[in-house]
C-alpha cells in the first residue's frame, strides 16, 4: 500500500503504476456532470474559473448531505466515462489528475500520458467509508448545483487504485 500526500509532484506521478493500491491524503475537489458543463461554459466565455485547476485532483463525486457533527455525508465515486469529453481539455490546462470509477476513453488515457498525470479508481459503492475519510468539506463553487456543486475536500487515507498511469498502462 502506497501512501500519497497531495499535491503530487511529477516524480511521484511517474513512480505510480497501474494496479498500485494507494491511500491518498490532502486536498481534492469534487466535480461531476453539471459542474463540468458549467466549467466549460466559463472556459468558452473566457471567464476565470472560481478555483485553481493547476495540479488539482478532481474527484468525480456528488456527496450526500453531512449529518450534524460530520464533515461529509457518504461520498463514493461516480462513473467517470460521462466526463470523457471534458477531461482531456482540463488535463491540458494543468489538471493534475482525477479520481473516479471505471474505464475512460482512449483520448483521456492519451491526455494523461501527454501531461504526466494519473487517474485513480476509487471503490465504487463504498460511499460511507469515503465519507469518513473526508475530514473537511467546503462548497467552493456553483452552490446552486446542490450535490453537483464543487466541494473542496480534505481527505486522509482515502483508498484507491491507480487505474491509468502516466506510461499509458491501464488496470482494466
Amino acid at each position, binding site marked *: 500500500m502506497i501512501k500519497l500526500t497531495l499535491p503530487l509532484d511529477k516524480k511521484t506521478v511517474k513512480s505510480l503504476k497501474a494496479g498500485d493500491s494507494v491511500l491518498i491524503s490532502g486536498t481534492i475537489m469534487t466535480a461531476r456532470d453539471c459542474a463540468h458543463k458549467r466549467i466549460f461554459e466559463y472556459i468558452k466565455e473566457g471567464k476565470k474559473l472560481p478555483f485553481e485547476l493547476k495540479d488539482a485532483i478532481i474527484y468525480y463525486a456528488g456527496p450526500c448531505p453531512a449529518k450534524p457533527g460530520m464533515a461529509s455525508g457518504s461520498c463514493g465515486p461516480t462513473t467517470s*466515462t460521462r466526463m470523457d469529453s471534458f477531461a482531456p481539455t482540463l488535463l491540458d490546462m494543468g489538471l493534475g489528475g482525477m479520481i473516479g*470509477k471505471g474505464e475512460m476513453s482512449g483520448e483521456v488515457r492519451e491526455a494523461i500520458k501527454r501531461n504526466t498525470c494519473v487517474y485513480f479508481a476509487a471503490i465504487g459503492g463504498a460511499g*460511507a467509508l469515503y465519507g469518513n475519510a473526508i475530514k473537511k468539506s467546503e462548497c467552493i463553487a456553483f452552490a446552486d448545483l446542490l450535490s453537483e456543486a464543487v466541494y473542496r475536500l480534505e481527505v486522509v487515507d482515502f483508498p484507491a487504485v491507480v487505474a491509468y498511469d502516466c506510461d499509458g498502462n491501464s488496470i*482494466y
Partner: protein
Amino acid sequence: MRIVNTKKIADTVYKMALHAGVNLTPSCLKALNEAHEIESGEAAKFAYETLLQNAKVACEKNMPVCQDTGMAVVMLEIGQEVFLEDGLLADAVNDGVRRAYSDGYFRKSVCNPITRVNTGDNTPAAIHTEIVAGDKIKITYLPKGFGSENMSKLYMLKPAQGVEGIIGAIVETVKSAGSRPCPPVYVGVGIGGSFDTCAYLAKKAITREVGEKNPDKVIAEIESEALKRINALGIGCQGFHGNTTALGVSCECAPTHIAGLPVAVNIQCHCVRCEKEII
C-alpha cells in the same frame, strides 16, 4: 372491503426508504462475502475488503451505504378489496420518499431531464401499481442508482434467436458495461411481454433475493447459464479482473407476440438495496 389510510402508506414508504438507503439486503451481503472468499485477484480482493468494511461502517454510523441513494422505485400490489382514503396514492408515496431523503441525509438525485435542475427532494418516485386479489397492499421499495441503470439495455430479438439469443443479449450487456456499473453486478432480465412490460419485468427481477432461482426450470437454466458465461468474462469486482463479475442473474418471463422476443437487461450494482412490506 378494507379501508387503508394513505398516511399509512406514506409512513411505511418512509421507514422502508430510510432502511434501504443504509443497508444492503442480507442476500447481497452474503453473496459479496462469498465472492470475496473465492477471489484470487489482488486488486479485486482489495475492492471486496473495502466494500465489506463499507457495509459495516454504513450500518454502524447509520449513513448511506452508497452516496447514490438512487431514484426511488416503488412497486405496489394493491388488493382489489382495498379502499384508499385520505389523499392520492402517488402523493403518499412521494411524501414518504421526500421525508426519508431529508431525515436520512440522503442525496437528492432527481432532476428535470432537459434543464437538469434538481427537484430538490428526490421526488417524484417511479411508481408502479398492480391490482391483485385480496385486501392487502404489498410494497416493494428499491432505491435505484444510475451508474448501473445507465448500462441497462432492451433488445427486440427475432423469435428464431431463441434461448441462445436471450443468453447472448444478457452476456453482451454485461460485457459492454465493463467496469462502469460497479461490478459485481446483479442482472435483472425481462423476457417477453411488450416493449414496456419487458422493461418492468427486468426491474421486478432485481427485487428478487440474490441467488433465488426462477421456479420455472427452463428459465432457471437460462439464469445459471448466463451467470456462468458472465463470470467467464473475467471483468471482476470494479473491473479489476477476477472470478466474479455478477452476483446473480434473475429472469422474469411473460407471454409475448408471435413476431417478437423482447429481452430487457436491467443492471443493478453490487449495492442491492430492497425492502418489502405488507400492509
